[in-house]
């Protein structure tokens, strides 16, 4: 089922005449994992900010569930329809992990009523991503990068959004934590029917994708074509991708 759609989306920064994204058209279905890949500065994160409603495209339109984002309240859209996992986590560092989740529930006007019920739901959600109660009661400031990333994931899920957007979700994680985070994201798409869109440089992340969207200099490149683009992967990039695929098989 089509969940998100980009129709001829173009974007340039204020005061600039150069387009960062040029006429991008793509559709995203529920129940699938998408990875958006491309070299640094290609426009991947800009694409995510447009999809997540943090920014508005200059030309073209983004549709969520058939509705144009320009006509929706973007605050409500961010609070209720999409869950964003930021590369830099973007959590309230002076608050506890569990508070970050309950606050997100409150902002999204969650159906869970009562402070205690919300807190219990937040603990359950954190537990689902591997954060125990003791850790959940600690301030973000005192959590490791991996723990913060998990809290970020839990927060993105706190309002049960249809679309999960992740910007380099494993960029700061060790191999073991990366693997766990990827399992969580895959499960969200394949078991819970969410549309998961991940911006990444990591080939390990690309390996879990159902579909790959390549961006090169603001233009969309079909996934497989992109895999063959050695300019992105570096001299041995293609070989590395092949190895991952072989290992999966």
């Amino acid at each position, binding site marked *: 089922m089509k969940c998100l759609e980009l129709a001829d989306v173009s974007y340039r920064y204020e005061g600039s005449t150069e387009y960062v994204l040029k006429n991008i058209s793509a559709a995203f279905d529920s129940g699938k994992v998408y990875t958006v890949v491309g070299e640094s500065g290609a426009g991947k994160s800009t694409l995510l900010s447009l999809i997540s409603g943090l920014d508005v495209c200059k030309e073209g339109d983004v549709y969520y569930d058939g509705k144009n984002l320009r006509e929706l309240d973007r605050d409500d859209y961010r*609070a209720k329809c999409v869950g964003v996992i930021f590369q830099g986590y973007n959590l309230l560092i002076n608050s506890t992990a569990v508070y970050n989740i309950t606050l997100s529930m409150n902002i999204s006007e969650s159906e869970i009523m009562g402070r205690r019920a919300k807190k219990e739901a937040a603990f359950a959600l954190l537990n689902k991503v591997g954060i125990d109660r003791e850790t959940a009661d600690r301030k973000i400031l005192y959590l490791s990068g991996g723990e913060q990333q998990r809290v970020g994931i839990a927060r993105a899920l706190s309002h049960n959004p249809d679309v999960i957007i992740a910007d380099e979700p494993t960029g700061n994680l060790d191999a073991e934590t990366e693997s766990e985070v990827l399992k969580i994201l895959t499960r969200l798409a394949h078991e819970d029917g969410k549309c998961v869109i991940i911006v990444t440089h990591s080939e390990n992340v690309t390996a879990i994708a159902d579909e790959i969207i390549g961006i090169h200099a603001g233009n969309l490149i079909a996934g497989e074509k992109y895999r063959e683009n050695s300019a992105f992967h570096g001299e041995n990039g293609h070989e590395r991708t092949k190895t991952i695929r072989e290992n999966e098989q």
Partner: protein
Amino acid sequence: MKNKNFYVIENALLNLGKNKGRNFLQGVMIFAVITTTVIALSIHNTSVAIIGEYKTRFGSEVNIVPETLADNLPDITAEQALLYSQSEYLRDAQVDEVKIGSGAIKLVYYLKSPESLDAFRTEVQDKGLPAGYIVDIDKAGYDRMVMPMEGLKDISLTFLLIVLALGCAIMILLSIISVRERKYEIGVLRAMGMKKQKLAMGLWVEILIITSVCFILSLIAGGLLSQSISDALLAGLMNTATEPVDISVSPQTVLQIFGVAMLFASVAGIISVSKITKYEPIKILMERN
């Protein structure tokens, strides 16, 4: 609807505890501004009240005195003095006789209202007041008593205006610094979908709580300090020893100070709202990342 917004207040309360250092500094500044406002307002209001009382007292106390102390002035008889006292402009038919030297006397009457002076003067003249007498209030006595109080009132008013201007400037500065410092937090909350007005409301609740606490503390501190400051100011203004003026924080003053405190909180709120309105979450987060 009520429950859906309650978290904004809850979050504001939690933030007060989280940012103790900054809130304490902000509190100290607000406390200083409100305390000086309490002192200035208390002195000003008391001065105004005393001046008003003096005006009523001296303005109501009307004297019939010889224009000069000449020997050939006809005397005012007791019957005449009594006749003058039977006036609708006077509080009662009371007349006091005061010797003013060389056998001359001053007749003192008490008007219902200082505004009736002209009417009373005409009435007395119509009743046959001999030439050479004047009907007037004790201007010299009034000036002697009121001038220092006018000086005190003017000083406190100037001080109050300076404090209010400085207070507003400080609040604007503090709000800008506070919002800038919390830019990241604002960016995160906005990225989570919190609406600008709710965010602004949260910041306003925080500043309102800090201001309310400062308001209570300032009332106590200001009440204690204003008497000694007033005494010191009066001592400088009066050449002769005089009775000390009892400075008090009246309910009217409390209300005015409350208004000033709310003005400061509103200034802070408006600044926060205007800053937040300009912030775009994506820019804040991009800057930080």
